[in-house]
């Protein structure tokens, strides 16, 4: 299904080979293939268009180095541009609070509860923190039970209040509980919500205002399609979140949503989820993600071959 970009470029590059310079004519076909590969990888339509326009401008403005074929130059331009778009070095979590409060947000089923557990486990084992998980999803059937099971698996305490249906009150009480027990990280799990659900967006905004977290994280499924931009933008408008978590990257999705989100909100992607187990968490490497979206391993070898 997913032909890698390199294969596509390979085809398009036949047009370019033998030409000494990049012109409007020979660049068009290549860019069409690049754009198509991006769309196949679920990069947003408008962003893919902007991206190829940027690459085109750079290509046209640039003189072809004698050592590079125009085709090679195009590949390099695409790769560099995308890597730059994906952001700089991996960014960690701000742990300056006492306690540090971390708020999870995102659509239904994106992986918030699972990631809350993974992050707690990571901070406990890798950063010697004493985390508390707080169950603020008062809607989803057995959401509180789920967080308790997760907490049990990693040996992290879970604060919940079964009779309470006010997430703001639960979040505040959770933080107070952490302070009383000397726990120094509080991870607040929340219910999944759609960006168009005004009541639910107002709710998370209220939680956010009430607890003023050091880190607000937007958790998104890596398989998300074109709608990723709308969702990311809406959540960011309300929460001005600090970072993005990309889950389910253990699948075979190319994950183009990562580019879309990065371009639209310009927030770092901080961690990725790579499985259902508590250990399946990794820091985010922009260059690796760019490689994945483009099938870049192959493109690099293509450059070497050319």
């Amino acid at each position, binding site marked *: *299904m*997913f032909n890698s970009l390199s294969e596509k470029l390979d085809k398009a590059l036949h047009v370019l080979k033998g030409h000494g310079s990049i012109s409007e004519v020979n660049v068009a076909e290549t860019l069409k293939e690049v754009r*198509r590969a991006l*769309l*196949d*990888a*679920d990069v*947003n*339509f*408008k962003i893919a268009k902007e991206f190829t326009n940027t690459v085109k401008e750079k290509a046209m403005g640039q003189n072809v180095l004698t050592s590079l074929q125009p085709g090679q130059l195009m590949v390099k331009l695409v790769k560099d541009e995308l890597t730059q778009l994906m952001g700089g070095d991996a960014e960690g979590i701000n742990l300056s609070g006492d306690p540090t409060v971390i708020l999870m947000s995102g*659509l*239904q*089923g*994106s*992986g918030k*509860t*699972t990631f809350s557990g993974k992050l707690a486990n990571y901070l406990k084992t890798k950063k010697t923190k004493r985390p508390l998980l707080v169950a603020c999803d008062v*809607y*989803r*059937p*057995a*959401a509180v*039970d*789920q*967080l*308790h*099971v*997760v907490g049990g*698996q990693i040996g992290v305490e879970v604060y919940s209040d079964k009779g309470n249906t006010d997430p703001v009150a639960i979040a505040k009480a959770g933080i107070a509980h952490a302070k009383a027990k000397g726990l120094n990280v509080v991870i607040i799990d929340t219910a999944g919500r*759609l*960006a*168009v659900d005004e009541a639910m967006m107002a709710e998370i905004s209220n939680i956010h205002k009430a607890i003023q977290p050091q880190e607000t994280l937007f958790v998104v*499924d890596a*398989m*998300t*399609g*074109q*709608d*990723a931009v*709308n*969702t990311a933008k809406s959540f960011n408008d309300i929460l001005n979140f600090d970072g993005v978590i990309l889950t*389910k990257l*253990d*699948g*075979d*999705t*190319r994950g*183009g*949503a990562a580019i879309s989100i990065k371009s639209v909100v310009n927030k770092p992607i901080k961690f990725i989820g790579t499985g*259902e187990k508590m250990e399946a968490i990794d820091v985010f490497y922009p260059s690796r993600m760019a490689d994945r979206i483009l099938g870049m391993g192959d493109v690099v070898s293509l450059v070497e071959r050319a």
Partner: protein
Amino acid sequence: EKSKTSFFGKLNKAVAGKSKVDEDVLDNLEEILVSSDVGVNTTLKIIDRIEARVAQDKYLGTSELNQILREEIAGLLSETNSGEDTEFVIPKDKKPYVLMVVGVNGVGKTTTIGKLAYQFKKQGLKVVLGAADTFRAAAIEQLQVWADRVDVPMIRQNMGSDPASVAFDSVKAGVDQDADVIIIDTAGRLHNKINLMNELSKVKRVMQKVIDDAPHDVLLVLDGSTGQNAFEQAKQFTAATEVTSLAVTKLDGTAKGGVVIGISDQFKIPVKYIGVGEGLEDLQVFNKIEFVDSFFK
């Protein structure tokens, strides 16, 4: 934001006094379709067909073109789907009717089962649920909440037990209790995990020890906000379990779920249900005309 008037407005202008749909309209159509996750391949297929029909029919008014557009898109959706059904129906000749629900993680399988159970129960059918997701934290408790809500029996074992064994027990209990419908929940799994896909084939096979043609329906649940990866999901789940119908969830959001058009076209699996919320009543029988219309809203 693309409004309905802007697209059909352009369509209007473009066809006025012409026999060919112009480039602008097609570009606009391409944007609408790709932005609805229809995918480049299927989008090009639709555009080609429209161009061909426009070339063939000498004169075309806007309303005809508008109609053609809908027809061509809807035409890719399965023919077995008339788009006119509004009822949740179960074939009368299969009793109990066994429905197995599969899909990747977090798409809405368990929730869809709760909603389906509600619909069937409302018709006076006797429903039994099987909690064969024994892996995910509190998955059994989650389905139990739905079973209690709808007031139907649920067969369960402990977390970590063999899902095939739960499926077997559930089908057996359904037969013993003279149920009309048995719905089996399964754990979410990514389609590229071979062991988990094999496990699913086994869950399916085990039911046949009780009823030889079970499951009668394998429902693949797709998240409406999923992009092109849904193709691979349809392909791999079909390979492992012979998927017979699709449900598309979370269409109450801004995602359009257009990827099912290509899937339906390529795999000939009808879309049966759409999920439009988290409540008991938030499941609808799929209507392809409304679905197509939503792209242009």
